[in-house]
């Protein structure tokens, strides 16, 4: 066990705020989220498009670019607050790719079309592990082999356009785990692929990350994906975490009306045939100058007068270990 943050976890994000200044005002994309990831844990981050999932992950890596900025909070990783490093400092660069790596959602655009696959894998090996060209090449072949690319040695000198989407995502996974990072952030890693390839690649990704003993943060809007693999879930809405807990607690005892809405809008095998799916009405709120009340209020089927006038509630424990929810309607009622 390495050094850990104040509460003994490998990654602890505390009260993180990220905002984007645009002409219309300030977009509060990440609005004070706190979460933690343990070693070798698989954590799911779930929410609609634009709820701040990706931005929160990019903030951890300090990859937020103008007009965005990290407005506050702490990111403890192995006992160090990463936000104390300057975004382009050598320390931060050593973390990126070396200790925390990221797998992006678009395999078609996440590889540089003018460099060979081999170069793109060996680059980080040489950068972070100080390997020489020959060692890095051997390791790259090994990695491509692990992610199931046939005749890896001969494909090392091919360019990305000579690979299909699924193959490119395999290459992305190989790059992501190349330096055996402590944590891999996969940002909707399977969105661009078709269903059969999705399942294969998720299994592959988990096996590969498991082999290098890393943790995985799975950012997705696909509840099916996290249900199968994640140990703990964070449900995000409008830049805040509205519910967190163990995967089974959230699936069996969803507490926040938003989580309930999400679960009702995906097909389930354990329910009667012919049951209609229930969508969540409306659209996610505008994050420019949001009102202080619960951001889900306008779409919430259980809203009350209290929700309208009082500020967004704190995360409160409900039934289940570490199961927290941010809703007035659950206070006391089903409390732990």
């Amino acid at each position: 066990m390495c050094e850990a943050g104040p509460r003994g976890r490998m990654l602890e994000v505390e009260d993180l705020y990220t905002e984007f200044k645009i002409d219309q005002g300030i977009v509060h994309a990440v609005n004070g989220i706190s979460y933690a990831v343990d070693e070798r844990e698989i954590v799911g981050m779930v929410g609609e498009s634009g709820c701040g999932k990706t931005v929160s992950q990019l903030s951890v890596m300090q990859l937020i670019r103008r007009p965005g900025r990290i407005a506050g909070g702490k990111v403890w990783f192995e006992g160090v607050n990463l936000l104390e490093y300057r975004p382009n400092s050598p320390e931060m660069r050593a973390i990126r790719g070396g200790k925390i790596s990221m797998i992006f959602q678009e395999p078609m655009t996440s590889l540089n079309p003018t460099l060979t696959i081999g170069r793109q894998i060996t680059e980080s090996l040489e950068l972070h592990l100080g390997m020489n060209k020959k060692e890095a090449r051997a390791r790259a072949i090994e990695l491509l082999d692990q992610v199931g690319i046939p005749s890896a040695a001969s494909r090392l000198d091919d360019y990305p356009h000579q690979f299909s989407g699924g193959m490119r995502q395999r290459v992305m996974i190989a790059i992501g785990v190349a330096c055996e990072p402590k944590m891999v952030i996969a940002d909707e890693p399977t969105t661009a692929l078709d269903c059969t390839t999705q399942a294969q690649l998720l299994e592959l990704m988990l096996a590969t990350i498991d082999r290098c003993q890393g943790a995985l943060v799975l950012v997705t809007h696909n509840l099916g994906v996290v249900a199968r693999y994640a140990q703990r879930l964070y449900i995000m809405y409008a830049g805040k975490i509205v519910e967190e807990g163990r995967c089974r607690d959230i699936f069996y005892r969803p507490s926040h009306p938003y989580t309930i809405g999400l679960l009702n809008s995906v097909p389930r095998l354990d329910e009667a045939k012919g049951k209609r799916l229930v969508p969540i009405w409306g659209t996610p709120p505008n994050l420019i100058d949001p009102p202080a009340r619960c951001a889900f209020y306008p779409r919430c089927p259980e809203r009350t007068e209290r929700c309208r006038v009082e500020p967004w509630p704190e995360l409160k424990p409900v039934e289940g270990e570490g199961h927290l929810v941010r809703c007035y309607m659950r206070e006391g009622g089903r409390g732990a």
Partner: protein
Amino acid sequence: MSDVSEQVFVDQSGPDQVPYGRPLDAEVARPVSEWRRFLRIFFQRKLVVFGVAVLVVLVVVAIFAPWIATHDPYRNDMSKALRSPSSEHWLGTDSLGRDTFSRLVYGARTALIVGFGTVAVASVVGMILGLLAGFLGGWVNAIIMRVMDALMGFPMLVLALLLAAVLGAGIHNVIIALSIATLPAYTRLMCGETLSVKENEYIMAQRAMGAKSLRTMVKHILPNAFQPTLVLVTSMLGNVILAEAGLSFLGIGIKPPGVAWGSMTADGYRFLEAHPQLSFAPALCIMVVVFAFNMVGDGLRDALDPKLRGVL
């Protein structure tokens, strides 16, 4: 209560465990070689073939000038001034008795040195500035691009004239003047390309792998952004040679002992009626060479344009 994942969700079957087989040959068969496709489109136009031929001849002449020239292009011999074309002096001699053909041959050197020198200096500096402006953005971008805007405010030749007049004549100064005058085109092109390439996900992926800004710029943005500059370079070559001829014609280009087609045209101007070849021969050279460069530039543009893929 059994495991959640076993009960609730759809994809229970798990992934296909069959190991990936060797793909069929058809799947890995390579497409038509990019290089061949390029050559085929490039040489499709007869004028491009002509342009390339002229350029090859020009380069050969420039390199082997001392062997091709029949006389010393710099030696004055007033006793032989203003001879008509003959077997000894193929294009006659000028007012100082210098062999016109030999001077044309050496003029090719000047034209090429100025042409390639200028596009080399201007494109390299312009690409660096454009890359910095586009990649760093903010005040770096503002300063570089406003300076370029100011330079673009002047017509290219007027600016070159001004700079050449300030710097003085001479081949280095001509290259500097023309480089500065053509710099904005490269900078703006590169800046625009950088801005669009920068938004690609692989640049973000690269930063997520911990790459330095410099590395990202040089290894990842530059190779994806320099192709339009390549086309600009070839189309600029003709313009630059023409501009150099103009400066030399006006007497602020290449200094008198040096040989330039522009100044030869100007020198022969006084004897236009008696010895028209003194002006026409260098002028024709300028015309043919500039035309050839422009044709090659056009051909290159077509061959590199992805929109024309499959059409030609």
